[in-house]
C-alpha cells in the first residue's frame, strides 16, 4: 500500500528537480562562452600540466596563441617531437623541432664526499637553510640537499639520495620549474644529448679550498684541458666546463681526471656512475 504521504512528497520534489534542471539548462545556454573548437582540440593534445616551460602560464593559453598566430617556432618541451608532429598535423603547418633540454645538477658532493659544517635544525628547505648559514656542507656552491627543488617538480623526476638531488633523465621534461627553486644555482638546464659528458661541479673556490671542502670537486688542475683534442674544455675562475657543441664524447678527459670521485660524468644518474666505477 502506497502511503498517503508518499505521492505528494514524490510529486513535489520531482517538480522542484524538474524546475531546477530547466533553469540550469537555460543558464548554460544563455551564458555559454564561445570557444574556438580548434583551440579545444589543441588543448586536448597538449600534456595539460601547466608547467610554464613553453613560456606561457598554462596549456590553455599556449593553445590560444598557437591557433591565433600559427607561429611554428612555438614549442612544448614536455611533449617533445611527437607532440610537435601532432600539433603540426592538426593545424596544417610544420612545427619546429623542439630542442629537448634536461635539468642537470652540477654537484657530486653527497654525504660521503662532501665535508660537513654544523648540523642544521631549522626549517628543512634549501632556501630556508641559506638564510641561516652556508648550509650543512662546507662548499658554498654545493647542492644543499634539503630538496626544495623536488617540491617544484611536476613530473616526479627528482629524488634525494644520500644528501644529493638525483634527476631521472627519462622523466625530466625540461620544464625549468626546479631552476628557480634552487638558491645556489647548482641546477642548470642543458641540451638533452644521447651521450654527454659534463663536469658535475660548480665550485669557483681555488683548488686547495675545493679539495678541503669536498672529494668530488673540480680543482682546475687543467689535465682535462690538455688531453682534450677538440678544445672542448674551458677553465673559468678555477672551474672547468665542457663546451657541449665541441665535445665528441671520446672519454679521454675522464681517464686523466685526478679527483677521488671522478667529477666528469656521462649520465646524470648517480647510480649509473657508481655502477660504472664499480665495474
Amino acid at each position, binding site marked *: 500500500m502506497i502511503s498517503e504521504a508518499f505521492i505528494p512528497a514524490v510529486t513535489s520534489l520531482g517538480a522542484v528537480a524538474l524546475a531546477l534542471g530547466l533553469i540550469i539548462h537555460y543558464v548554460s545556454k544563455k551564458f555559454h562562452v564561445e570557444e574556438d573548437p580548434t583551440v579545444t582540440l589543441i588543448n586536448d593534445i597538449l600534456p595539460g600540466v601547466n608547467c610554464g616551460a613553453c613560456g606561457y602560464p598554462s596549456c590553455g593559453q599556449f593553445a590560444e596563441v598557437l591557433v591565433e598566430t600559427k607561429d611554428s617556432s612555438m614549442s612544448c618541451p614536455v611533449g617533445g617531437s611527437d607532440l610537435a608532429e601532432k600539433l603540426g598535423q592538426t593545424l596544417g603547418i610544420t612545427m619546429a623541432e623542439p630542442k629537448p633540454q634536461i635539468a642537470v645538477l652540477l654537484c657530486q658532493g653527497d654525504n660521503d664526499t662532501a665535508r660537513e*659544517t*654544523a648540523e642544521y*635544525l*631549522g*626549517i628543512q*628547505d634549501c*632556501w*630556508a637553510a*641559506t*638564510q*641561516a*648559514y*652556508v648550509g650543512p656542507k662546507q662548499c*658554498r656552491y654545493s647542492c644543499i640537499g634539503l630538496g626544495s627543488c623536488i617540491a617544484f617538480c611536476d613530473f616526479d623526476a627528482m629524488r634525494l639520495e644520500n644528501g644529493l638531488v638525483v634527476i631521472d633523465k627519462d622523466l625530466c621534461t625540461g620544464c625549468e620549474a626546479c631552476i*628557480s627553486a634552487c*638558491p645556489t644555482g647548482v641546477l642548470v638546464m642543458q641540451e638533452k644529448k644521447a651521450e654527454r659528458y659534463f663536469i658535475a661541479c660548480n665550485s669557483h*673556490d*681555488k683548488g686547495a*679550498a675545493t679539495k678541503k671542502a669536498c672529494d668530488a670537486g673540480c680543482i682546475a688542475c687543467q689535465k682535462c684541458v690538455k688531453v682534450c683534442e677538440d678544445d672542448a674544455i674551458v677553465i673559468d675562475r678555477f672551474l672547468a666546463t665542457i663546451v657541449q657543441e665541441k665535445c665528441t664524447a671520446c672519454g679521454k678527459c675522464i681517464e686523466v681526471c685526478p679527483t677521488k670521485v671522478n667529477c666528469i660524468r656521462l649520465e646524470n644518474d648517480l647510480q649509473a656512475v657508481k655502477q660504472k666505477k664499480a665495474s
Partner: protein
Amino acid sequence: MKTFAIGGIHPPERKLTESSAIEVMPVPAELAISMNQHLGKPAKPVVKAGDEVKKGQLIGEADGFISANVHASTSGKVKSVKPHAHPGGQYAMTVFITPDGKDEWAGGLDNAPVDWKSFSREEIVAKVKDAGIVGMGGAGFPTNVKLSPPPDKNIDTIILNGAECEPFLTADHRLMVESPAEVVGGLEIIASLFAGQAKAWIGIESNKQDAIDALKKHASQKGIEIVVLKTKYPQGAEKQLINAITGRTIGEGELPFDKGCLVQNIGTAVAVYDAVCRNRPLIERIVTVSGMEISSRKNVLARIGTAFRDIVDFCGNLSEKTNQVICGGPMMGKALFTLDAPVVKTTSGLLFMNNAAVEKSRERTCIRCGKCVSVCPQSLEPWLLGNTAELRKFDEILDFGLMNCTECGSCTFVCPSKRELVHWIKYAKALVNSRQKRKSA
C-alpha cells in the same frame, strides 16, 4: 615611563655581565679581517699577501656609495687574502694578518684629542667615512651615509640608542658607564651636523640605572635629554625607539629620516668621537661574552678580526653542554657554524648556550591562540605570515605586510606551538625578492 605603544615582550633579562668592567683582550696570533662588515657592497681589498701594514692602515676600500672602508687592527704582515667564514653564516673575502707584536699606528692616526668644533660639517662626515664607521648595533649601515640624509628630509630629532634590549648583552651598558664623556661627545658631534634644527636624546632602558646616572652627569649642561624607557623587548629596535621617545610611527617602506629622526648606536657614537677627535679608525669593539654555558663571562674589548676561538681561549671555562654559539643577542642573532669566524664591526655578543629545545621540539600546527598578534610591535599577524609562507602563496603574502616585519622574534618567542615564524618570514622574503629579481631580469 615612556615605551612603544604596540606589542612587545619581556624575556628574562640575564644581564649577567652588567657589572663586569671592560677587559682589553690582547692581540691574538692571527687576525682575519673580513671585507664584509657592513650593509652594502663588500670593501675591495687594497693589500695582497706579503704586504706590511701598520695599525689603522686602510686594507679594504669602500666599493660604491653604500659601502665602508676596512682597516688593519694591528701592525704586521698580510698572510693571505681569501674567502673565509663570516659570523653572518656565509663566506666573505678576508684579509689575514700576522701581527708583528709592535702594534704601531700608521702615521697621522691616534692623535691627542682635538676640539671637534674646529672642523667643518663636510670635514666631520669625511672623517667618519674615512674611519670606516658603520652602525655597531647590528645593522652595519655606513654611518657617513646616515649622517648625510637627502636634503629634503628635515631632521629634528637625534636619538642615541642606549636601550640594549636583547637579553645577555651589556656592551653598550658598560660603554655608557665607563666612557660617558665620549658617548656624549659623539652625540654632540652628530647633533652639530644638524645644528639649530635637531634636539638630542639618549634613550636608556630602566634596568641600567648606573648608566643613566653617569650620562645624566655629562649631558646635563648640553641640552641633551636622557629618557628612561620601560624595559621591554624590542625597545632598542629603531622604529620602536622612535615611537617611544617621539610618539611618531615609521610606516612600511619608510625610513627614520622620513619622520625627521636619526638614530645611532652608543658604540657608533663613541667611534665617531674617536674618529673625529683622535683620528682613530674603527679597529676594535666591545663584545659581551656570556651565555649559560660559559662560567667566566666578560665584556671584552676585542680587535676586529679576532677569531671567536681565540676569544673563548681568553675567557676559558666553556661547558661541554654547549650546542649553540650565538653571534649577537638570543632574539635576533645568528647561530655560528664554526668558531673560526672572526669578530666584525657589528659583533655585539658571543653567547654560549645549551639549547635543549632545538634538538627535540618540532613545529606543530598553529592553534590560533593569537599570542603572536598581541605581541607584534609592527601590528602584523605573524601566524598568517607563517602559514602563507609555508603554503608558498607568495602573491598574497606581500599584502599581509611581509616587508614591514622587523624580524624582532617576539612572535616566535611566545608561540606555544613552537612555530619558526621568523624563519618562515625570512624564507618568504628571500623567495619574494628572488622572484622579483627574476621578473625584472
